[in-house]
């Protein structure tokens, strides 16, 4: 005859995993949304003012306009910061929305994979464009180029 031993309730070793592995990730995300939000307000309002309000607004935006802006390191850094902060801020916002509404694990995995893919492609593409931009491409009609491209 064997006796079955049953451990007394709630007396086992401390559970690992769920509590032990908990990180402050969500806290940092929460702080980031607020810190980046303030910066983005300044960056995006400045961007909208320069591109939609100053001068002739949207009607003045063309290749020469963009080239003229990116000739200045200020606007390069401005747009680079805006790209990264807005993409991280927006991606984290969509991640929150997915977590809230996609109830099935599989759905969440698919949606978040698509989201992180879009994030990576957009940020890499945008960063490359800012750093490899050529304001005076060879062979382009001179009237489409900024005035400093005199050949």
């Amino acid at each position, binding site marked *: 005859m064997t006796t079955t031993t049953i451990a007394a309730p709630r007396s086992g070793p401390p559970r690992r995993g769920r509590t032990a592995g908990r990180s402050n990730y969500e806290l940092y995300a929460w702080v980031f949304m*607020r810190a980046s*939000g*303030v910066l*983005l*307000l300044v960056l*995006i*309002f400045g961007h*909208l003012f320069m591109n*939609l*309000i100053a001068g*002739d*607004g*949207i*009607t003045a*935006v*063309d*290749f*020469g306009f*963009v*080239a003229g802006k990116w000739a200045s390191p200020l606007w390069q850094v401005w747009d680079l910061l805006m*790209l990264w902060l*807005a*993409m991280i801020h*927006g*991606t984290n*916002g*969509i991640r929150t*929305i997915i977590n809230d509404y996609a*109830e099935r694990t599989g759905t969440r995995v698919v949606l978040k994979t698509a989201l992180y893919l*879009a994030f990576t492609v*957009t940020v890499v*593409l*945008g960063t*490359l*464009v800012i750093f*490899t*931009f*050529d304001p005076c*491409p060879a062979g*382009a*009609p001179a009237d*489409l*180029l900024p005035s400093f491209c005199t050949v």
Partner: protein
Amino acid sequence: MPEAPAGTLYRGREGMWSWVAHRVTGFLIFFFLLVHVLDTALVRVSPEAYNAVIGTYKNPIMGIGEAGLVAAIVLHAFNGIRVMLVDFWSKGTRYHRVMLWVVVGLFVVTMAFFLPRHLGNVFGGE
């Protein structure tokens, strides 16, 4: 996880509706951002390609779309400041309703300044 939540925490009124507006505007702005990086990337293809695409931003229908985009951004920005005040200001929760109406007021003033200017450019007046 239940298919339909039993009972709800949504309480309606200013608190919930400003939260809904923040979500909807944020969601829309994000997808515009993806498109906007792609269209700007065309400067790397050729001046003609970029000018062709940015030209579509100047037609009246897109012009009205831009007005909507700016409205979404302005509301999201001002309401974001309100969210931070609710989080960090000791009296934030007490005044969150008043602050929403301040946000709406600032939004109306900003758009009253922006819309005539932008629509004037788009529709070629003055």
